[in-house]
């Protein structure tokens, strides 16, 4: 679990981690928001369902894959938080959405 230091870096951006509001500093990544929210896992692996949290924080390891604003399997450490961002754990393999296809293809 990580904690912020609001006296040094004011936490001003409200995001929703698994539906729960969390305040994080501007410029932080979605992966940082998940760690600050204390989520036990940002994803469960598609192979064995093992829980994972971000490991490298620099776009190398792909262990921080999460569903961000409805988009599956995003590298959360490479996504900067924005007000109102919704971040959810990626549980196993993603879904494809044949019913939502026209919207996707845009």
């Amino acid at each position, binding site marked *: *679990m*990580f*904690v*912020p*230091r609001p006296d*040094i*870096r004011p936490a001003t951006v409200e995001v929703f981690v698994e539906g729960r509001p969390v305040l*994080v*500093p*501007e*410029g*932080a*990544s979605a992966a*940082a928001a998940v*760690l*600050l929210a204390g989520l*036990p*896992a940002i994803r469960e*692996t598609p*192979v*064995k369902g*093992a*829980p*994972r*949290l*971000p*490991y*490298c*924080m*620099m*776009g*190398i*390891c*792909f*262990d921080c*894959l999460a569903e961000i604003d409805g988009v599956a*399997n995003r590298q959360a*450490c*490479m996504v*900067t938080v924005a007000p109102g961002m919704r971040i959810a754990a990626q549980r196993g393999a993603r879904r494809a959405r044949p019913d939502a*296809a*026209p919207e*996707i*293809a*845009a």
Partner: protein
Amino acid sequence: MRDYDLAVTGAGPAGMAAAMEAASLGLSVLVLDEQPAPGGQVFRAVEAAGCDPALAGEFLDAGAALARDFRAALHPGGEVEYSPRSTLWHVDIATGVISVLREGASEEIRVSRLLLATGAQERPVPIPGWTLPGAMGAGAAQILLKTAGAVPQGPLVIAGQGPLTWLLAVQLLRAGAGPVTLLETGGKGALWDAFRAGGLWTGRRLLTKGLALVREAKRRGLKVVRGVRELRAEGEGRVQRVRWAGGEMACDTLLLHEGVIPSTHVSRALGLEHRWDEAQRCWRPVLDEWGATSHGLVAVAGDGGGIGGWEAATATGRIAAIDAARRLGRLPEAEAERRAAPHRARLAAALALRPFLDRLYAPAPEVLVPRDDATIVCRCEEITAGQVREAARLGATGPNQAKAYLRAGMGPCQGRMCGTTVAALIAAERGIPIGEAGALRPRAPFKPLTVGELAALPLETVA
């Protein structure tokens, strides 16, 4: 199609220095970077970190100055175009056309020269339990401090070795983390071996800096355990304790670090010549004194060409930019030599201490070749050391055949986290040097892009 004299991938010290030098020589420059702001990993988010006292020192002084100079070179109408949040996913090495993904759209850009300034990544530390939540790279924790001011709560263990372990311990202690324990994995004879490498006088400034860190860490209450072997992380669903031969300790966060290695994913994907560096225990591209690779289009600067630290990176960035101007006919040979000379001198000074550090912090054999068969090697596909050994016995002579057999290196990270370990395991099993086992040959896309981003079809054609 847009075109540039020089494209630089990476806005760390090497990339920023190269861009500024190239612009001053009249080259049109495009700087691509995956991050939203310049700095690379060493000076990550240096502009936003402002005056965090925990980061006082080189980061806030030299890093901020470098980013400021780089921004100044970006004045409107200037020669440097900076493209943050941009991912290089393909290079047509024969034509110099590169494919870049930015804001969900892929663009092809023609370049006369490509400089890879992709920096370093932390060496993977495949110990039992390293996939548990709560275990992460030491560099990752430092990035959290730099980008979010965040610090780990509860008992914290930093395990491994290298200058970063001391720097991070100091920064986290300053930021109020604690209690912090450093489990040093270095070997007993390493210090004497390191002294024999020399360079201590030339590198005395860096050495003094390092010793000051050690003193500050101890003053701030860092507990140090030396000679740690057979490290493992344990816990139910997350890290709860760490064990080693002869000891154990409860912890909430385990930060692993065994040094950094060049990020060679792109340079290997381009088929450039690489060699195994036995001193640094990593692959590095074969470069000439200008940073030029085995292919006429591409150069490498900074830690991506071999670990040297940020000061060496700025020097190699400048030298590679001078070479780009020379190759493009914008700078006479003699002038290039003259202009490169001071940077070569800075490079030599910055690298003086490197042989000492390489020996002092050489990773133990068990870091490259996990002993325990159950240890996960490929985090993406969850392939163990035992499975890799079995593949080697079946006949896999290198990581590419092991990948075909096992899927190790086939997940989203494309072998960035397992390639070297797989090769080292095969080498150990077959009794050959790691360099002979070889490296993974990655392919484009260097980073994922969606099928839709690649297809780039308007909605009305499909819906």
